[in-house]
């Protein structure tokens, strides 16, 4: 185990090796091993409290892991601030709570990080922002404030914001869970398009239709462990573990 081991070659953009994490005495992540190849889409599912969000939040260190290694594009996630800032530049994130900057217009939300983090000239960042907004069908909303948009529109802006610094991997933390059912579709549509363009994505979601359509690998977690992982057809047609079978029957029969 370690940075130099053969399978941590440049093939994997994100690699978790023997990752463990505790909240006090509670063992939140137990021996997580996952290597995500460039250009692949991983869907992480599982019951609430199973550690899905905690796991992806460790990748850009919104949460701290206590054991093991997390390597992003060859850089180890640690307390070293310059490395961490570089990693966060390479990792875009979309949140369940959307978290657009409420005091900034859509356009300013998009250009904040490119201008201040990457040093992109303002007009260049705005041009790129406009082209991305157009692709998600929000070109006419650029100078509105987040509070003036619907939840679905806000989440699409948040996806564009995550794309602005041309990240090498996108993390989605339950991006549709807080949205009205009518708005889930428009967000998923954007995510499917991204997936089809070959963007590397790690998606925590309960949208099994999305997993079926775009995932290269479905990872099932329970009680802080990765219990099962398989390509979507195999995972949905013949889950191996009892826990996964039970989970699938719950979400399909509801």
């Amino acid at each position, binding site marked *: 185990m370690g940075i130099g081991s053969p399978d941590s070659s440049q093939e994997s953009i994100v690699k978790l090796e023997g990752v463990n994490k505790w909240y006090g005495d509670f063992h939140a992540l137990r021996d997580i091993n996952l290597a995500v190849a460039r250009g692949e889409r991983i869907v992480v599912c599982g019951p609430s409290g199973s550690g899905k969000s905690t796991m992806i939040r460790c990748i850009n260190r919104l949460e701290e892991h206590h054991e093991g290694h997390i390597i992003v594009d060859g850089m180890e996630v640690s307390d070293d601030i310059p490395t961490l800032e570089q990693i966060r530049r390479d990792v875009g994130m979309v949140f369940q709570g959307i978290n657009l900057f409420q005091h900034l217009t859509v356009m300013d939300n998009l250009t904040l990080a490119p201008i201040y*983090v990457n040093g992109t000239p303002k007009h260049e960042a705005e041009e790129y922002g406009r082209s991305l907004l157009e692709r998600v069908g929000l070109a006419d909303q650029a100078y509105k404030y987040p509070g003036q948009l619907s939840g679905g529109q806000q989440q699409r802006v948040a996806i564009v914001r995550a794309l602005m610094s041309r990240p090498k991997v996108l993390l989605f933390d339950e991006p549709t869970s807080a949205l009205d059912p009518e708005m889930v579709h428009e967000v998923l549509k954007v995510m499917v398009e991204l997936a089809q363009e070959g963007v590397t994505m790690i998606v925590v979601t309960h949208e099994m239709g999305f997993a079926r359509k775009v995932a290269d690998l479905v990872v099932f977690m329970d009680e802080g462990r990765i219990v099962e992982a398989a390509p979507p057809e195999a995972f949905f047609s013949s889950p191996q573990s009892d826990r996964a079978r039970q989970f699938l029957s719950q979400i399909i029969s509801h």
Partner: protein
Amino acid sequence: MSVSSARSSVRISADVRRPSPIVQGGLFSRVRDALFNNLHNTILSVVLLVLCVDAAWNALHWAVWGAVWHTDDPEMCKQAAGACWAIVGEKYRLILFGTFPYDEQWRPFIAVLLILGLAVISAFRSLWSRYLVYAWIALVPVVLVLMLGGVFGLKFTDTHLWGGLPLTLIMAVVTVVFGLPGAILLALGRLSKLPAIKALCVGITEITRGLPLLVVLFMAAIMLPMFLPQTLRIDKFVSAQIAMIIYFAAYAAEIVRGGLQAVPVGQYEAAEAAGLTYGQRMRRVILPQGLRIVIPALMNDIIRAFKNTTFVSILGLYDILGATSAATQDPKWVQFAPEAYLFVFMLYFVFCFSMSKYSESFARDLSQGRNY
């Protein structure tokens, strides 16, 4: 069309839109409904109305019709039935400018005009830009030269000669201009993960908040010089000013901290995930949102800082209230001191009320999602 199950039933809503049947009456009918709706309330209303009219009549009679507006002879005032506003005309130079040399009083007058002018300009939010900040910074040496003199052929006037309105305004402005950034630093420090910085900021905030302003002023002006070498004598005005800044910063820091903690945790996370540095996260994301939440509370503190300048008179500095009490020592006019004080109270009220109204309109704008 109605639908029923075993015990519940429901009917499909009619598809019509109608104007609201609730009619808002005019002023007359609202007054009648509220004050004269039955015998008991009518009697009470009439009695109170008579008392109010009588009190207003007496007040107007004293303050307006019976008042002496202009005279340089205090005997005229003594014979009059009403107020003696003439004292204001007689003593206004002393009230407004304190002991500043009489012939040089055009200098503090210009200083006051500059400060007030820039304050009024700053109030227009459409004019907000970095040039306004530069203008405030440039104002400091200009006001200092005007007040202190000693260059450009202006006579040197030491700070112990400063007084009246310019002293009050300068102290208030300097307190806020230095105290607000201080408060932000104290608040950020208090929320810091670094234990030494956190302890220092908690210490400064809590010790200062635990002391009355009078004690802080005494410590700055009287005790501090005792510990410092003779050569390091700090000017009384400067030490009072430093005390005011620290006192303001300590109180405002807790307000700012409240604002920072009211910013949803998701905003911190999104800023972190975007790769912004600590300074960028605070400057671009957290402070703009946290501060606007607490603008009304901060304005309250700013108004208090303005009024707290009156405390410096215990150190022998003549702020506008101190200058007024000095001005009314003249035995010929001493009995008309209340009129002079009323004049100064009006001045205070005008300043504080406009600040309060301003913060109200500002908060209203912000709540409508307008941004600056």
